[in-house]
């Protein structure tokens, strides 16, 4: 049996969860699939999970589970492992999925392979997982009676499942005070400040080649004209030219816009891990040998400021005409 940790289902199964369920069905092959959902809404999730081929949904219900508490969540999954002895527990490699499975690994002294893109059950299981935010792949063997795997988001194509009628099994986990020490006690709402980097259809991104904080002026102007936002590389953030919230890359925001305009960005793997999902990439760089050009669809060679100002002027001219 393969157990899937599901963060929560609000009506429909979200993409990242559907990807993890697709991964789990392939891994399970002919073995049954079960799921564990923690807290409110678990019972309501059963039909959507049944449609994904989940035969049994274990729902942890406890008054202390109204606010997210990673260790308590892991404790709930551990109880199901104890009762049902799955060969593997699979979760989405989201922030919370990664965190709950890490705590579960620590609690149960279990092996955890994070950010898998494919896997084959067996003893040992074989997995392919992401390193360097996806710039490198690792093939590994996972040893242990219960193997924990997280699924790298947006690496698995969602497949349709043969739906079943899911059975709901509710249980009340035994939670100690220590399980609830780390618990969300307050939510600060984000200030509504325009379009987010992750959602923008166009990202005009600048690197060291922009030259200074002031050098981003023309990039701002172009982004405004195209209904997009400005991004930047890690070198720019480290220099203090832009805030970290603008940073695209492995340790910044991962973006997938219709168009990514990379201005004066060399194309280090750290940066490409955050922008390679873009539908199109236009590179503007004075160095025709920059690695960015090997990952771009279009390129313009020359001074970033001069080229961007010319594009802005051309857009204004043709729109005015």
């Amino acid at each position, binding site marked *: 049996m393969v157990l899937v940790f599901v963060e929560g289902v609000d009506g429909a199964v979200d993409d990242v969860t559907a990807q993890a369920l697709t991964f789990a069905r392939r891994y399970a092959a002919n073995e049954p699939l079960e799921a564990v959902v923690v807290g409110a809404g678990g019972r309501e999730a059963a039909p959507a999970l049944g449609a994904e081929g989940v035969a049994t949904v274990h729902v942890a219900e406890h008054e202390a589970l109204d606010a*997210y508490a*990673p260790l308590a969540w892991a404790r709930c999954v551990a109880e199901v492992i104890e009762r049902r002895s799955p060969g593997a527990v699979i979760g989405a*490699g989201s*922030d919370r999925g990664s*965190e709950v499975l*890490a*705590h579960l*690994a*620590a609690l149960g002294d279990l*092996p*955890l*392979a*994070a950010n898998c893109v494919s896997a084959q059950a067996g003893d*040992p299981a074989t997995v392919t997982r992401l*390193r360097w935010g996806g*710039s*490198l*792949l*690792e*093939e*590994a*063997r*996972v*040893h242990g009676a219960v193997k924990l795997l997280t699924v790298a988001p947006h690496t698995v194509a969602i497949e349709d499942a043969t739906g079943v009628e899911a059975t709901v099994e509710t249980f009340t986990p035994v939670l100690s005070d220590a399980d609830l*020490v780390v618990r*969300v*006690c307050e939510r*600060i*709402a984000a200030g509504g400040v325009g379009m987010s980097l992750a959602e923008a*259809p*166009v990202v005009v991104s600048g690197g060291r080649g922009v030259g200074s904080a002031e050098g981003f002026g023309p990039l701002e102007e172009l982004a405004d004209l*195209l209904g997009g936002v400005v991004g930047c590389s890690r070198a720019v*953030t*480290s220099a203090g030219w832009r805030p*970290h919230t603008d940073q695209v890359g492995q*340790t910044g925001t991962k973006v997938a816009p*219709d*168009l990514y305009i990379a201005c004066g960005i060399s*194309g*280090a*793997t*750290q940066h490409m891990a955050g922008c390679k999902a873009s539908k*199109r990439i*236009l*590179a503007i760089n004075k160095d025709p040998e*920059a*690695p*960015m050009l*090997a990952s771009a669809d*279009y*390129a*313009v060679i*020359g*001074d970033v400021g001069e*080229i961007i100002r*010319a*594009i802005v*002027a*051309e*857009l204004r001219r043709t729109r005015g005409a």
Partner: protein
Amino acid sequence: MNVLVCVKRVPLTGGRMVLRDDQRALETRHLGFTISPHEECGVEEAVRIAEAHGAATTVLTLGPPEAEEQLRDAMAIGIDRSILLETDGEDWDPDSTAAALVDAIEAERAAGRDPDLIVLGNESADAGNYQVGARVAHALSRPCVNGVKGLTIDEGQVRCEREVAGGRDVYVVPLPAVVTVLEGINLPRYPSVPAKLRAQRKPVERSTPQRGQARVELVRLVVPEGQGRQAEILGSGADAAPAVVEVLRQIGVA
């Protein structure tokens, strides 16, 4: 108060991943090295806590003898002392890494330097195992807050903020505690030349831990195929603007 920050030495990979012939590691002969980005911010955060609250600070790493370079970098930022758990240079699996860190922290406790706050990166830049912090916290029976982007210490507690869709979640936990931080929690300072010189005189304690059996066992590394993009050169300098605008129209963003 004692603050201990764990860091990992990782190569500066530049634009291309090149593997060693045995396909078990990157070819790093021509690469520089750095502290993994999240942990670089962890070092800065530890120094800021020390500046605000007068803490004694220690940086701990598991790595090859050359990782002394990253310990010196951390001490140039302002960390007081360092511990190097020497390996033969191979990357350790997360179970063995956590076990070695826990042993070193237990030794600190025995020496009267029990860390009130242990800071790690949320995940390393290279291996990205996302679990060492949780394993260390569990072994020490301490609370663990992951993915921290804002941190304040107040009266024996640590208040942590974590970004989530729509805002920030707040956690308040008692010390001693473990936190794993994300880049962006602060902007690390550049060390001054005098600070770099002072760091050369700060202590590095060394020991050689034993590696356990890896349960996630590396078989080989593979450089993923590129997306087969072949950049079409639209021109040079300002003269390229009309061609660029034409492309913007074609793809429907102009």
